[in-house]
């Protein structure tokens, strides 16, 4: 089994690297390839089972778009072919049509029908509770951007902010591409979703440290559902 981590030297903000550290524990036999900014991605010549990219700075989004642009069609082909992707934080924006800020407009890869807007004066911090395929999803948002999306959402919003302030869904799902503004170790936080993803890539069985993961999840879920607790 092959797992590709895209640009971990820059796409590693906000504890996102915890996802791959956890996946290594869940899949001890899998081969992990960390593709650096100066490398040709593994997915160009091969078809990894799973491709991950984490949060990055706004400046890094420009660099990543530049590096991925030559492989635009290949990424499109992989998504259409059902390859599993997980893009966390602001990383899904690079596959969108554009990222607009007050004084700048960055053209994305145009694979996803999303248009992001940055507001560097206002940071959106919030907890998130949502539903994905009848599973509870918990996570954290901490971002400068929101997006208008014409894509199917990743999760239904129960509490917290969606893709934008008015959106009833959070993130993007296109075939087995999962893009979410949720950041940090979402695989550690969501044992049901992690098990779902592993089954999707053909790695059935227990997830690592499942009992502790479920204990932490249960507690967090109760807190997120407690209406006396604020989310921001």
């Amino acid at each position, binding site marked *: 089994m092959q797992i590709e981590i895209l640009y971990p030297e820059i796409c590693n903000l906000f*504890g996102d690297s915890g996802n791959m550290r956890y996946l290594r524990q869940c899949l001890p036999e899998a081969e992990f390839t960390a593709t650096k900014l100066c490398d040709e991605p593994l997915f160009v010549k091969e078809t990894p089972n799973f491709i991950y990219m984490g949060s990055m700075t706004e400046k890094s989004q420009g660099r990543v778009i530049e590096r991925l642009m030559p492989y635009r069609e290949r990424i499109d082909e992989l998504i259409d072919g059902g390859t599993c992707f997980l893009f966390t934080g602001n990383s899904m924006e690079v596959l969108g049509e554009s990222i607009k800020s007050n004084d700048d407009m960055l053209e994305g890869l145009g694979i996803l029908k999303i248009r992001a807007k940055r507001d560097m004066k206002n940071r959106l911090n919030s907890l998130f509770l949502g539903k994905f395929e009848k599973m509870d999803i918990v996570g954290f948002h901490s971002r400068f951007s929101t997006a208008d999306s014409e894509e199917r959402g990743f999760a239904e919003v129960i509490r917290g902010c969606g893709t934008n302030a008015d959106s009833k869904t959070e993130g993007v799902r296109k075939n087995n591409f999962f893009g979410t503004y949720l*950041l*940090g170790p979402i695989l550690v936080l969501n044992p049901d979703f992690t098990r779902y993803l592993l089954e999707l890539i053909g790695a059935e069985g227990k997830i690592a440290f499942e009992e*502790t993961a479920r204990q932490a999840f249960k507690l967090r879920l109760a807190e997120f559902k407690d209406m006396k607790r604020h989310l921001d």
Partner: protein
Amino acid sequence: MGAVRFYIALWSAKLIQLAIKILGKNGTYFPGKAAIKLCPDFLGRIGRPRTVIGVTGTNGKTTVCNMTADLLDAMGEDVLSNRAGSNINAGVATALIEGSSLTGKSKKKIAVLEIDERSARLIYPYFKPDYILCTNLFRDSMRRNAHSEYIASVLTEYIPKTSKLILNADDLISSAIAPDNERVYFGMERLECESEARENIVRDISVCPECGRTLTFDFRRYHHIGRARCECGFASKTPDYLALSADFENMKLKVSERGELREYSLITDTIFNIYNELAAITILRELGKTTEEIEKALKNTKVVQSRFLEESKNGKTVTMLMAKGLNAVACSRGFDYISRESGKKIVALMYDDIFDEKNTSENIAWIYDVDYEFLNTDDLVQVIPCGVRAADGKMRLLIAGVPEEKITPVRCEAEVADTIRYTEADRIFLLYDVYRHNIATKVRAEVMKKIEGLA
């Protein structure tokens, strides 16, 4: 009209300050907050000392600010400082109100003020320090600070063009702020005692900011601190003040000052604090103080050890180590320190955010940026993640490879003293967030009591 508003704000704030003193309350920023509310450009109107030094940065700014103020005090200067107060705009205003007359004129000739990086946009448009010293920039609380590149951009946007900058040449991020300003760099050679840094999870800069190629580090001290270069020609800045060696036996620090060799008393034995001392020496030299004046003052100065306390009894040593929670680098430095200490160790982790635990649910993503892997050593016998997030702490430790039988999570700090397996270890480390100081002090007292009972 503006002047009238200013005097109303000043006198109201002075009355509040007086009331706070009479009532014996702590109001480290309230008078300033009231003044700014009444007069939004208050910081631009109040009289300022002839020389103003601002100290900012992610880690070490309190230490550098206090050390610089202490050294100036020892030299006989009458220093205005916010060392007992807050470092946001209201805290700076409170210090200036305290140091001003009823007409708003400054009673002091020099100020050393700690300034929060995020408050740059609220302070610098009105109040322009002559010198701004930036210790370093690392990722910090993601909610407040986003990431270090963002904070660097905020500083670059708001730092006054007239401020002379004192910057850390070993930090590629903070050394690049406000590129058009006059600047002086300090830095440190690789010391004899330093081994090659271990791989940290967080390295806030790893590709060249000019061309995007991977940077080559000739020496990496920790995280992104060190000397780096890129094949495009981009490289770390050359320090004007370069610490060449630290002699811990005789407590001496050798510094090359623009090529001239000087020697100072070393008042610390940790690398992090050597940077802080060097930063303080640099600013004092830039103010025109002589090496002899600084050396004389150093002999009467100590680094305030509020973040580190150690006591031994019955063959056990208990160490309290405070670090800013939500700050992955500060916590990783603590883990690195523990892992390099000898002896069988027990570690209690009290990092839960005190404000979030009651009213919301803590965003724990930051713990995945902390080098928990450093705790996974053979001489670790027990680790106790504490608080409502104990299960998250256990999960992080498991992912770091710590065997499950060594992890004892407890839901409340009050359980720590009863949970420690005293007979198995000779070192006990109590690690805690800044806001848990009182709780950690209680835990320490209970632990010491238990140790006394072991005799």
